[in-house]
């Protein structure tokens, strides 16, 4: 299927599944939608609706879409994972970058990230907590991401692995892993390293700097 057809199909699916979001431009540029997002459970019972705006990135579908809550129903505080301008922090950037590197269509973004995010906001409103886990704010959330992705409590391993990826010094499959565990790379962090490689160099450099700062000896 051609890229143009894939985009056309994505827009058609958006219109079918989110019919109250109106396509704002039909000029071949990255699409934007705005309107009402009804949130219902799997049985179709309705809980609430949000006014939203969805913008495809310039590199669509190889970029991260942005969704804004425009009705002011979510308090603009970090704990609610929404910025002052209404932009919604639907997931940690790494997850989104990974998906974007493989092509992230608007419908998939809505289905996998935005819609669950708004359902989670309603869950928070009802219960005072999110349904499952959330990332910690700031760099602590990044550390949490690495902890969960690399299955390690040791941030030094994340630093070692990032350094190896960024300097093209990843070991061969059967060589010891770059994290220093002594295990074969293929049985240790090979899969995680492939995942991290697709979040992009600039994100990894940023994270490496964060880990270096975190692990630096305290200056008295």
């Amino acid at each position, binding site marked *: 299927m051609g890229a143009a057809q894939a985009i056309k199909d994505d827009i058609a699916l958006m*219109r*079918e*599944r*989110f*019919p*109250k979001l109106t396509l704002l431009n039909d000029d071949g540029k990255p699409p934007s939608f705005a309107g009402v997002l*009804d*949130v*219902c*459970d*799997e*049985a*179709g*019972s*309705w*809980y609430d609706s949000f006014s939203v705006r969805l913008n495809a990135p310039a590199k669509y579908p190889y970029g991260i879409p942005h969704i804004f809550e425009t009705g002011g129903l979510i308090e603009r505080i*970090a*704990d609610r*994972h929404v*910025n002052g301008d209404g932009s*919604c*922090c*639907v*997931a*940690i*950037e790494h*997850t989104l970058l990974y998906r974007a590197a493989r092509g992230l269509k608007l419908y998939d973004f*809505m*289905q*996998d*990230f935005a*819609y*669950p*995010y708004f*359902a*989670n906001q*309603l*869950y928070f*409103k*009802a*219960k005072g907590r*999110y*349904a*499952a*886990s*959330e*990332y910690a*704010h*700031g760099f602590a*959330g990044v550390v949490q991401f690495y902890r969960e992705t690399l299955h390690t409590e040791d941030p030094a391993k994340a630093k070692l692995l990032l350094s190896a990826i960024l300097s093209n010094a990843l070991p061969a499959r059967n060589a010891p892993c770059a994290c220093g565990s002594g295990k074969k790379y293929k049985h240790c962090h090979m899969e995680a390293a492939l995942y991290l490689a697709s979040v992009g160099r600039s994100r990894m450099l940023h994270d490496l700097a964060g880990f270096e700062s975190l692990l630096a000896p305290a200056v008295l």
Partner: protein
Amino acid sequence: MDLYKSYVDNIRSAIGNDRKSGNTTFNFSGAISGIGNDIQKAELRTRLLNETRQTKPLFSLQNIVDQLGLHPDFNQQLGLHPDFAHLKNTGNIEKHYIQSMFIDIKRSTNLFKRYEPETVLIITNTIQRAAIHTCIIFGGYIQRLHGDGMFVYFGGKNQDRKDAAKRCLTAASMFSYFVKNDLKNLFTEQGIEAIFTRIGIDHGDDKDVVWAMAGMAEISEVTTCSLHTSLAAKMQAYAENNGIVVGDNIKTLVPSPFYATVARRTGQDKDRYIFTIPEESFYYTQYDFDWMSHLKSLDYIITNPLYGTISVKQRPAEQVFKSAAGLYPIAAKSQPYAA
């Protein structure tokens, strides 16, 4: 759609009770004799048939009446629009706008291949009743029943024509959804060929519609003489299976992106106009109406983005709503972050 659940249940029970097809809803492990079983079946059949004769909508459809705060007149008289009833048994005429809708049900004859006539009667009556209730709920006046189909008016005195046309389109859309989805699913489940609808709708304005009594004495009705009533019937034949075709007047009255010329679908330019008077430069266009998109655009309809199914916007029971339990499986997929 949940709205038609009671109707679907009625038909399912009738099918389950049918003797010809070998289906049975009874499971008494042979404890009941043939005669006893027959009596039970006859009783159920009578009950189901009586259900189809109730004036008010079945339970599930009543929900939308309550939810939208509508006040439908379920006691209206066939062929006697109340705003023009005074014309009955008179030679008077009156000019007033009206929207005409013709609903036809196709392939129901095939039901006789599989079921007893009594079962077919319950099935077709239930379908027709669903159509009647749907139209009345949205302010329609049933003018005539023909076969499984019917002829309905929308609008009247002191009714905004645009609002009436919207309600007319919504009634046609709801009923089409019922036939195309709920009924089809049931028939597929039973391994029988689906039936389908074809609907034609048009609006005739004040100057183009004459109301008068047709017929004589008790063999009469108060009806319209209008090109646009005739065209609605004609356009129905141009509709695709489970399709709605409307005249240009409807499109003008209720603008939306949901119209496309019939010619575009058929690829035949001759299908563009349903009626022409070239010497008067009158060319009247017919349009396919995308009723599914229309339904999805309504405030009180919700589309489940995960499955694409629609339902009437309805909150779950208070306790479920407060606990947000239904949301949990979806919400738990989210792991938000704030930089």
